């Protein structure tokens, strides 16, 4: 087991050699030209960050709201049933999300959401420009749907681990149910909820298929959320089999390394945060 993890690490270090040629420039230049052997990763990093940001912007309020409902309000039977469906939702393969993204979300973006946002807010740079249906926004929405189950499941666990005393004390002091939830239970579980968000972020960053299918695959940095873009995972999926020349291939592998390290860090952080909260709960409760 240890060997597998070590191997992943070792291999990455060995195969990522465009660092020598481009050094730090790899991350700050935005030219991606296989023919001229010029590789800059900025558009992909930008795309990955923007889509994940959009996804979290949508998924976090929705996911935490749902988790509060499941943990605080719903009777156990309903809560368990809904949790069962949410677990199933987490099991849906990502190509299926991509499929629905291409045939459902993209047309809806083009015909409904884009005109609705572009007319009143078109002067803002993020909503400017024409829409092709594919782009950062679409990818973000699909990603949001994909990460919501993770946020719900983990946040629910964390909220359930908040000791009863806390709740009862708040209610006894005369607060309403919402006040006890929002001002006592949620702050208590705050670190754990942050952990669930980091976990979701790690998922969103590494998600490949669904994003590849709806992002538009254009290595450009655009301010508009409706413009087509590219993400790290998507460029690897699209160009890896076609990569000619060592430098091209190794540039892609270096992108993979970046992605790996990023998710590695986020996962580690998330785990620590979740652990801290659940331990706090059992200490206070015990």
């Amino acid at each position, binding site marked *: 087991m240890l060997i597998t993890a070590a191997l992943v690490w070792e291999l990455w270090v060995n195969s990522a050699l465009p660092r020598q040629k481009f050094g730090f420039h790899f991350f700050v230049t935005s030219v991606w030209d296989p023919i001229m052997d010029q590789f800059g990763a900025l558009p992909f990093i930008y795309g990955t960050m923007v889509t994940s940001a959009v996804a979290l912007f949508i998924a976090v309020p929705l996911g935490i709201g749902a988790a509060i409902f499941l943990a605080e309000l*719903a009777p156990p039977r309903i809560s368990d049933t809904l949790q069962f469906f949410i677990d199933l939702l987490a099991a849906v*393969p990502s190509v299926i999300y991509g499929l629905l993204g291409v045939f459902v979300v993209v047309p809806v973006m083009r015909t409904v959401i884009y005109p609705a946002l572009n007319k009143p807010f078109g002067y803002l740079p993020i909503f400017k420009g024409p829409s092709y249906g594919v782009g950062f926004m679409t990818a973000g929405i699909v990603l949001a749907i994909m990460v919501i189950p993770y946020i719900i499941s983990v946040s629910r666990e964390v909220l359930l681990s908040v000791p009863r005393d806390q709740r009862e004390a708040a209610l006894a002091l005369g607060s309403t149910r*919402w006040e006890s939830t929002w001002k006592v239970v949620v702050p208590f579980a705050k670190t754990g909820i942050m952990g669930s968000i980091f976990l979701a972020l790690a998922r969103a960053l590494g998600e490949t298929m669904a994003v590849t299918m709806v992002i538009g695959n254009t290595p450009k940095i655009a301010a508009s959320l409706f413009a087509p873009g590219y993400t790290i995972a998507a460029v690897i999926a699209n160009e890896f089999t076609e990569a000619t020349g060592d430098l091209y291939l190794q540039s892609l592998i270096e992108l993979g390394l970046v992605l790996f390290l990023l998710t590695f860090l986020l996962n580690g952080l998330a785990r620590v945060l979740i652990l801290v909260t659940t331990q706090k709960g059992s200490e206070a409760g015990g």
Partner: protein
Amino acid sequence: MSNGRLRWRKFVSNFMLAMTGVCAFVSVLVLFFILGYLLFNGGTSINWDFFTKLPKPVGEAGGGMANAIVGSGKILLLASLMGVPIGFLGGVYLAEFSGKGMASVVRYAADLLNGVPSIVIGIFAYSLVVLPFKHFSAYAGAFALGMMMIPITLRSTEEFLKSVPRMLREGAMALGASRWKTIATVIVPAAYRGIMTAILLALARVAGETAPLLFTAFGNRFESHGWSQPTATLPVMIYTYAVSPYDDWHRQAWAAGLVLLALVLIINILARTILSRGIAVPRS
């Protein structure tokens, strides 16, 4: 005055709690929407040919995905052969033999491996298996998927073995069974249900994986004989068909999506009922 404030607070409370309910139902609705939409679109284009025929060239109607279904089966079989024993034995080791420090390192490594994006696993398999053989193959695909199965199987095997009560262990030891015999004949059978569930869930998770297969198993328009050739799989077929410009292919992508989703959800539900029916581990 204070009465009005109280009413306002109660209103806020009810309103916000109702909103959280709305959030929960919206999230669950998505699942039914996905299912319904796939049933509607895939159901109309699924037929017997889909399961028995090979893909037809562009422009000809009809044809199916027999090769992809067989290919998915082959790769999943091989992946389980690789991933399950390693994960299972690793789990046994962690739960029964290892010291504390070692165990936490392995556990942490497994958790991280579990969080690695699937496409990165794909690159790993590519450079380890595809490059030396200079060939996309079913082996490479299975290697990638097997690697993804290891951490899931390992962690849950460990969990379930650990929840076997001490009494059973001590009972077997007291009867003079060796350590290995205790594990093989008493502890593992006691945790059997839980471990089965874990393996099924791992299988369901990798069955839908596309990204690591793109440049390991690659895909194939024809039947692939043997294990060392590029092999078509359902998820990759869905991807290529969905981004293609042909209407007929789109319909087939829907059909394949329906088959894949049905497969994954059935395995999931099955696994969960195994776990919930009867108690996974006898309680002391």
